[in-house]
């Protein structure tokens, strides 16, 4: 069954066309990776899917489980199961992680007509998630991302993902700025979350992350279009030959 279907997606920011006709279909339970050089539109794609309003959609459509994703507000998309792990997680001073996570979970539960969890029910649930991800419980009472190291922020994104249990998890360059130990922890977290009910979209510049999270499909995004798709071996080929290789191929195909 298809979870996400992107057809001919065009998006502008400040009048510049960034996405120039993206087509992509992700089935339930699949892990896809989008790779591409800087400025190719990878992060724009992630943010459009998360419904950031700075982007203007000029053409195309995106269906999430058959529903029009492009008509949803960010919080509606979130409640429909879209989660984005941010490349640069934001600090919210004065709000504890535990409080924030419960508010977020309850907002989505409310949207789905489920009962909200009180602090007494929520805390054991959260602690279990943190144990699975090897996160220190001290994180619970610290303000959201405030004073966190780069690695801690990224791990915190994965904790949020584990709590919110999304249907579509988008990881926007989660590997950037991570040392190898932090990368392993994050990858283990994502692999724990891998399931038959959940689809994952990994956005990355480097092949390195894909050694730890092996995707079912790899797509190469160049200049706002997917120019090549394949299995995990495509990532290795890219690592070896560089993005210019696909660009050359595209030109050849077009010519």
């Amino acid at each position, binding site marked *: 069954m298809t979870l996400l279907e992107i057809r001919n997606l065009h998006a502008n920011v400040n009048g510049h066309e960034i996405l120039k006709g993206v087509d992509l279909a992700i089935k339930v339970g699949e892990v896809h990776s989008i790779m591409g050089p800087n400025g190719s539109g990878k992060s724009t794609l992630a943010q459009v899917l998360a419904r950031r309003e700075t982007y203007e959609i000029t053409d195309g459509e995106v269906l999430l489980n058959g529903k029009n994703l492009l008509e949803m*507000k960010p*919080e509606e998309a*979130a409640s429909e199961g879209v989660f984005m792990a941010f490349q*640069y*997680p934001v600090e*919210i001073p004065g709000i504890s992680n535990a409080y924030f996570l419960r508010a*977020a979970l309850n*907002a989505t539960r409310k949207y789905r007509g489920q009962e909200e969890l009180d602090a007494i029910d929520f805390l054991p649930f959260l602690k279990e998630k943190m144990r699975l991800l090897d996160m220190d419980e001290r994180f619970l009472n610290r303000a959201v991302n405030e004073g966190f190291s780069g690695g801690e922020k990224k791990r915190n994104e994965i904790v949020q993902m584990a709590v*919110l249990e999304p249907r579509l998890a988008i990881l926007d360059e989660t590997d950037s700025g991570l040392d190898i130990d932090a990368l392993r922890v994050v990858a283990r977290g994502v692999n724990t979350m891998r399931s038959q009910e959940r689809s994952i979209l990994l956005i990355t510049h480097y092949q390195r992350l894909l050694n730890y999270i092996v995707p079912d499909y790899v797509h190469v995004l160049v200049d706002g279009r997917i120019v090549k798709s394949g299995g995990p071996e495509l990532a290795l080929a890219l690592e070896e030959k560089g993005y210019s290789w696909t660009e050359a191929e595209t030109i050849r195909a077009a010519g």
Partner: protein
Amino acid sequence: MTTNAETIRDLAEREYKWGFVTEIEEDRVPKGLNEEIIRVISSKKAEPEFMLEWRLKAYRHWASLEKADAEPKWANVKYGPIDYQDIVYYSAPKRKPTLKSLEEVDPEILRTYDKLGIPLAEQQRLAGVAIDAVFDSVSVATTFKEKLAEKGVIFCSFSEAVERHPQLVKQYLGSVVPYTDNFFAALNAAVFSDGSFVYVPKGVRCPMELSTYFRINAAETGQFERTLIIADERASVSYLEGCTAPIRDENQLHAAVVELVALDNASIKYSTVQNWYPGDKQGRGGIYNFVTKRGKCQGKHSKISWTQVETGSAITWKYPSCILMGDNSVGEFYSVALTNNYQQADTGTKMIHLGKNTSSTVVSKGISAGHGQNTYRGLVRIQKAATGARNYTQCDSLLIGDKCGAHTFPYIEVKNASARMEHEASTSKIGEDQIFYLRQRGLSAEEAVSMIINGFCRQVFRELPMEFAVEAQKLLSISLEGSVG
């Protein structure tokens, strides 16, 4: 981005829900201020001679200041001239002057307080909070008096204190804020009509929160209440005040005075949730809130803590202060001030260190939205004798939108070289990235802004009694207007 801004604007379109008027017969004096009016007010209250004398001295002092055009103009706020002869200085619900029990309170007034969410009927007690309700110029009901009396705690209207405890009133009235203190303090001393009085005897911890709820109802009147709280040796008390007023196009003057006295090892915690009518979106109407609040840590090891959440009023001019006389005494000031639309606030504190090893903490959080102008003005003075004094000041401003302003005027005067002073300040803006982050996690734009602001104010909210902290959070999100940039 536009949607974020719109949602926040929607949130702000909510009306000031406390803006209704209660239809009730008033007993009011004619407009204007002169010695005759002072005598009428004093006689309406059947006051002893010493009170009338004091009022008249205050009036004469105020009149000389007015003549010399000495109304303070240094605050960073703008407003047209106030015609002091165009104000009614006394208005009271027409009913018998002394009330024996709640049953005698006009049912219209009881309904007003119910509507405001402040049930006065004792059986509907709000988790152990005793309330004094001040309606226009007079106190209409004080709850839980008997229970407090068992402990020797006096909690009553100021009028009743003058009648029944004249010695205490005589001893402490004006001892912290003399009528010569400033223009508005002089005016208040001349015409104040009621307020709350608290005395906690030696060694007594007040068994419940004490609270006063101030309501301006009548048109064209000023409200001039006076609160006096005395914590005797080893006594402690926590006191909270709240206030609202109807929506009116004219500005109304509120010039209150609060005096606190803490003797040896005593502590007073004074919390304010100020929600006077702020005026409309164009800046018409609203309360001028010109208030003098000061506490004296007279005894050694005494402590006075001010917490204020200021969301209402067209103009706020107030500096709850501590005079740290006793050795090892402690002063604290925690403040959230929000200005939206055309509201202006010039608020802060004065910490005057006189005793040895005195310490003070100042945490101020200013939020500006719309065309609001928010000024922090604070003085920390370490006198020569105050060896070992310490101060920590933190002063943060949060801007919402690009038409508002935040201003900071910290004054530090140190006359003793052993003082340790710390000052931190920051200014930030609510970012679109913060709002998007929270919305991506499922919160609405409204909830996101509210969460960011509550986080910003956390250090202050945690100083408030639990149930009021919840109220204050709600109030902030309702008071917000503007767009996020």
